[in-house]
């Protein structure tokens, strides 16, 4: 019995490569204070895997220490896997940095193990961007892996094709002989290896020479597995990765279409096709990207999201709305040549069960349908719901979310960060972002925790919020008792008492009650920082406004209607 012939491709120190740093720089990736991967530059300084971080920094003070991130490794590895999948569909990802594939078919096609190995090395290096891919081909995964990793010392003379060649091929049925000189530690079972060494079994060859039943009796199933591996057999068959199905659908339009209805007709067919493809796999789409290219090479993308599953009709509708928007608003200068639908988020389709007696599901369904219809009529941005978050004025606390998009607050309700990163800047915002420069004679109370947001936003006005917040502040003018325009100094002190107000050039109205100025300085450390001084002005007629002085002018920001 022999093992399946396997090709293993490994990129040495993948966690370092995945960080994207050039190999000549000393970089180490550290997990639990131990070096788990080191760049060639770091190795030249004497840093090896397993070293403590401090020791590594001692040997090379310039070394850049990067925290381990398995997610980053896996993400960066994904294109490499895709490149290897070009050779054969069945590829096993052993871990980020190592792939294995059965060579029987592809070797025959590409003209032998050596030729296949060379192609794989070229493909991987082209994607990974750096040299350093090594390939080993042998019977069984362990032998192939060791051949890929192999150092000349352990190789039989005939099998080493020269130190510079990244491909090493172990002859068929030669795995057992190839493995024999390797130490038992290569099995990556530290406890067992320790025991075997103390018993005098130092190499895989020594272990393989023992009879299998005796190994099982003495060392148990783990030992029997190690014995199998040492004889060049596999512990388990390759777990092949199924390539993710490509669910995107596209169609080319020839001649290019300039009219919405022409493209929408094609879009309807595409939506049906996409829906059928998803349906075959029992999937439902919750987010779809609509992409279009024009004759002049413009590429347009818009993502549509839906809380429930998007049906074929719903996708077709959205294609139509989107095309309406693109073709109608001058985003395009030429006809559309390519239309593409990409399902970006899919979930298992559980179907939908309505309550027997109606209930909220039916109502929400009806609401969802009517709101989607309005979005078709007016565009997706015209129908919104609001989410409240942190902020100092009634406008910045609100974020309007188009219907169907996920509702996320505009900013963290808690201005104090949880993590360590960026703590300095965020704390500065809390402490100084709204520093109140001498509120003068104003009766500004400390901010009161009101509503759902209890985080401190110093400078926020207490009390009920204004019922009308003008989408764009209305210009206004304020006069003091002497009839001169009222000013606010840089220190936040008013030049007089506000007596009359004119909104947008209208008639002068008498101010009967007022309070302020309440200066607020937001994000003064950035370009978009704002300095304002706010007043509440009650007019004789009963109208009350929130007025702000900003940039040398007066603005009515909101009205307490």
């Amino acid at each position, binding site marked *: 019995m022999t093992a399946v012939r396997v090709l293993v491709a490994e990129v040495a120190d993948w966690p370092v490569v995945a960080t994207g740093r050039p190999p000549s720089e000393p970089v180490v990736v550290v997990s639990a204070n131990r070096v788990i991967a080191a760049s060639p530059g770091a190795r030249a300084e004497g840093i090896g895997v397993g070293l403590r971080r401090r020791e590594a920094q001692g040997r090379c003070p310039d070394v850049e220490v990067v925290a381990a991130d398995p997610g980053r490794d896996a993400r960066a590895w994904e294109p490499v896997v895709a490149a290897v999948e070009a050779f054969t569909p069945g590829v096993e990802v052993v871990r980020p940095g190592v792939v294995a594939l059965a060579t029987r078919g592809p070797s025959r096609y590409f003209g032998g193990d050596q030729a296949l190995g060379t192609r794989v090395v070229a493909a991987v290096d082209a994607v990974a961007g750096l040299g350093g891919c090594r390939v080993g081909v042998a019977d069984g995964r362990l032998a192939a892996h060791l051949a890929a990793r192999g150092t000349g010392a352990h190789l039989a003379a005939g099998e080493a094709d020269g130190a510079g060649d990244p491909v090493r091929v172990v002859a068929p049925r030669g795995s057992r002989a190839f493995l024999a000189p390797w130490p038992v530690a290569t099995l990556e079972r530290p406890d067992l290896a320790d025991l075997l060494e103390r018993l005098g079994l130092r190499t895989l060859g020594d272990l393989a020479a023992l009879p299998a039943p005796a190994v099982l009796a003495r060392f148990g199933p783990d030992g029997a597995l190690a014995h199998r591996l040492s004889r060049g057999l596999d512990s388990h068959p390759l777990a092949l990765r199924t390539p993710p199905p490509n669910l995107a659908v596209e169609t080319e339009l020839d001649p290019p279409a300039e009219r919405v209805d022409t493209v929408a007709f094609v879009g309807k067919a595409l939506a049906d096709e996409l829906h059928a493809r998803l349906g075959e796999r029992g999937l439902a789409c919750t987010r779809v990207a609509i992409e279009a290219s024009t004759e002049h090479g413009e590429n347009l993308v818009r993502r549509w999201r839906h809380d429930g599953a998007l049906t074929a009709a719903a996708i077709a509708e959205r294609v139509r709305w989107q095309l309406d928007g693109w073709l109608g608003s001058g985003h395009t200068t030429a006809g559309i040549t390519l239309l593409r639908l990409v399902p970006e988020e899919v979930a298992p389709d559980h179907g939908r069960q309505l309550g027997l007696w109606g209930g*909220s599901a039916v*109502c*929400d369904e*009806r*609401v969802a*349908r*009517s*709101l989607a*219809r*309005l979005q078709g*009529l*007016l565009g997706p941005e*015209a*129908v*919104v*719901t*609001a*989410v*409240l978050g942190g902020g100092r004025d*009634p406008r910045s*606390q*609100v974020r*309007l979310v188009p*219907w169907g998009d996920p*509702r996320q607050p505009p900013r963290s309700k808690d201005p104090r960060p949880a993590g360590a990163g960026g703590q300095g800047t965020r704390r500065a915002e809390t402490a100084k972002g709204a520093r109140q420069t001498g509120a003068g*004679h*104003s*009766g*500004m*109370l400390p901010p009161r925790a*009101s*509503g*759902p947001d209890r985080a401190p936003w110093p400078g926020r*006005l*207490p*009390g*009920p*919020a*204004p*019922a*009308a*917040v*003008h*989408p764009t502040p209305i210009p206004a003018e304020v006069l003091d008792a002497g009839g001169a325009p009222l000013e606010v100094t840089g220190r936040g002190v008013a030049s007089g*008492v506000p007596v009359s107000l004119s909104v947008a050039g209208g008639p002068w109205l008498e101010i*009967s*009650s*007022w*309070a302020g100025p309440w200066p607020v300085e937001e994000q003064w450390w950035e370009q978009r920082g704002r300095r304002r001084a706010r007043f*509440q002005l*009650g007019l004789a*007629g*009963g*109208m*009350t406004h929130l007025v702000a002085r900003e940039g040398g002018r007066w603005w009515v920001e*909101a*009205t*307490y*209607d």
Partner: protein
Amino acid sequence: MATDLPGALAGERRLEVVGPLAPLLSGGGLRRGSTVVVVSAGAPGATTLALALVSGTSQRGSWCAVVGVPEIGLVAASQMGLKLERLALVAHPGAQWSTVVATLLDSMDAVVVRPPARLAAADARRLAARARERGSVAVILGAGWPEGADVRLSVHTAAWSGLGTGHGHLQARLVEVVATGRGAATRERRARVWLPGPTGAVAPFDDQAGRPRVEAEERFASSEPGLAWVGRVG
């Protein structure tokens, strides 16, 4: 929705309103299918009153919509008790105004709308009929409604407390609302409520427990006659 009592007749089904506003409405709620006009008559406060009217049913799980009011204060709406996750906003319906309102009346329990500058009486009648047919409530904000309404709520007097001359800040507003109408609402009803109260929600005027706490600076409040009686509270 859950706001209807089981076994209620179709004509009597009502959307619940917050307690302090209940005395203004016959049956203590907004009758489904009715049209309510909210106007400022002599004192501002119509926007707040419209939000307050639908906040009760929003808290009970109803969907509401606001059409054609781009400046609606959403923080105020949230303080008033409206659930923003069930509040759809169409700020600029444009030329499609009546289609948008009709679509929303089909699916929502209450729709707050501000009519466009020149609304044809026929359109208004059609929308009122749509609301009647679908059992939803149309709350018309402002005076631009060319038709009669089932209930007409007007804010007659309003006085803020808390704002002095150079000190204090707005805390609560006491308003007097007058309800007139036709049918069951023919008899004129009046109510004094804190709109908004100190938390931003509606507070009853005469309830000892719920009386807004007016800060000491009230003593320095303007001696204007209209505000004098505010100072007595607290």
